[in-house]
């Protein structure tokens, strides 16, 4: 290991053979990352490949038994729940765009305006992000308790409104799950936007103000263009993230009521660890993967187009 490295100017030995040079110079470096590489192989690279391969096999336990071609895919797609699950997954994304995408931008712009208590507001909006995900999910499940003892139902009763079923209402369950996710995540995203807003040259606003531009015009012509690139990145990352939603429906509703909150990844989880159909679980995984890849490619395509226009 104690050999001088290539860039060192002090090297007195004559030019050794190529393999010997490799052995002395590069091999010890590779040796250092052998454990890290093994970890990457076992937990990232091998699972990706074997997962893909296994999706074409009949499985027993978690082992391949027999090659069956696309049979897993056919079984999964012809399952009556599958269609609803795909629709649900897109609904998750749609609701997250309605609730989760706009809130952090608006909050960031508003906090950025504040001349007092800015650090308090930052602290407050970030705080839910520090509540562990499961604790947050449980907390909101308690608030959404459909009985008369649920906190939000008590509030409704006090206002003289009828009680709600909350998460047990199949048309409310996805928006409420997204609301919970947004509650935890938006503060962090708002902090990111704020960092970008701080970078906007303040003289632009002053110049615009002198030219008589109102607040709305300044937002439209200065603020939005300045932060549009980060908006684009966060948008695509959010879509990719929400499309793979698993923990929140798993912990809050287990996909219920009546599969109304079932997402693709939750379906994959149920196949794997509830019905022990590893092959079908992986078929769902591959389908999700392909859908995501198509959407990402489409996004970049559109993005490039709008940039060149």
């Amino acid at each position, binding site marked *: 290991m104690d050999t001088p490295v290539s860039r060192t100017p002090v090297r007195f030995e004559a030019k050794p053979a190529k393999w010997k040079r490799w052995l002395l110079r590069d091999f010890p470096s590779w040796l250092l990352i052998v454990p890290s590489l093994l970890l990457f192989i076992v937990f990232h690279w091998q699972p990706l490949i074997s997962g893909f391969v296994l999706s074409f096999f009949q499985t027993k336990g978690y082992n391949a038994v027999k090659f069956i071609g696309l049979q897993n895919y056919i079984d999964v797609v012809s399952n009556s729940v599958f269609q609803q699950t795909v629709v649900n997954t897109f609904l998750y994304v749609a609701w997250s765009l309605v609730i989760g995408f706009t809130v952090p931008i608006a909050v960031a712009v508003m906090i950025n305006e504040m001349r007092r208590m800015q650090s308090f507001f930052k*602290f407050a909006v970030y705080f839910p992000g520090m509540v562990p995900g499961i604790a947050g999910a449980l907390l909101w499940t308690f608030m959404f308790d459909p009985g008369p003892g649920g906190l939000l139902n008590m509030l409704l009763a006090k206002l003289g409104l009828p009680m709600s079923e909350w998460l047990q209402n199949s048309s409310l369950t996805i928006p409420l799950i997204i609301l919970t996710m947004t509650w935890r995540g938006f503060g962090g995203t708002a902090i990111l936007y704020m960092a970008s807003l701080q970078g906007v040259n303040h003289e632009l606003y002053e110049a615009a103000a002198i030219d008589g531009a109102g607040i709305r015009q300044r937002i439209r012509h200065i603020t939005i263009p300045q932060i549009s690139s980060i908006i684009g990145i966060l948008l695509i990352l959010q879509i990719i993230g929400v499309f793979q939603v698993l923990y929140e429906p798993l912990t809050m509703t287990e996909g219920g009521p009546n599969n109304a909150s079932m997402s693709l990844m939750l379906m994959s989880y149920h196949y794997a660890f509830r019905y022990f159909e590893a092959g079908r679980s992986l078929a769902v995984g591959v389908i999700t993967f392909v859908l995501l890849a198509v959407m990402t490619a489409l996004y970049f395509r559109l993005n490039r187009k709008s940039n060149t226009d």
Partner: protein
Amino acid sequence: MRAKESAGIIGKLDFRSRSIRVLYGFIFIVLIVVSLACLLPPLWVLSSSLKDIKEFFAIPPTLIPHTLQFDKLWETWSQLNFTRLYANTLLMTVGMVAFSILFNGLMGYFFAVLKPAGHRFVFVLVLWTMLLPNTLGMVPIFKNIIDFPVLGVNLTNTFWPMWMMAGAHAFYVIVFKGFFEGIPQALIDAAKIDGGTRLAIFFRIVVPLSMPVMMAITIFTVNATWADFFWPYMVLKDKSMWTVIVAIFNLRTVVPLDIQFIALTFAIIPPALLFLFFQKYIMQGFTFSGIRG
């Protein structure tokens, strides 16, 4: 909290206009409401865990408890064996921090400083792990855990899977790489001439110069480990190995609601304290760490 020169859209001159002042007041009120929506639910849990059972179920609920029952806290602590849960979580955290810094750090060093022939190819592979959606991992990783490749051992009910996963974290590798690239090459060359081995240079030169990034990654890992749910839940099936988060999830159907609130409080307080102490670090770190939700 002092008034400061705004970096915002509304300039000083705008405040002469009445409608702008109204707008500013309106934004202020909206932000107060948003802040309350963020802070009240956790505060409600914290305060509820202090109430006696009668007040706990009282309608309407009180935010500031009239009754204080500290012995109930203590009872819950010992009944659910929180000493054990905290110790388990701590052990898992320490291991994950160690693995995370050592193995991701060495890989960052490999890409930033050593750069032997072929390192670019491996870097692309590492980068891809971060970019590709991980929708296929669940089953094969679980399979590797219950029957570890080559060794053939079953790692359920141990912390090894979580520790090892912490050691293969593409994002941290990239953060380390970025930071190590900023270390002056002259320092490393000098150490080489003095006969330092690669490993010695890493521990004696690179690590001491990288305290800020080590600190940041430690805080991230501690925070993430505390909240870590999925793999601990899948792997730690034995009650004696549960972490706090696994316990509050597994116990949610077993214990009464008021006890669950106390357990939830015990789960929220440590990361809240971490946040109070390292607020700057965590929020800054977030800016370079990317996104959730």
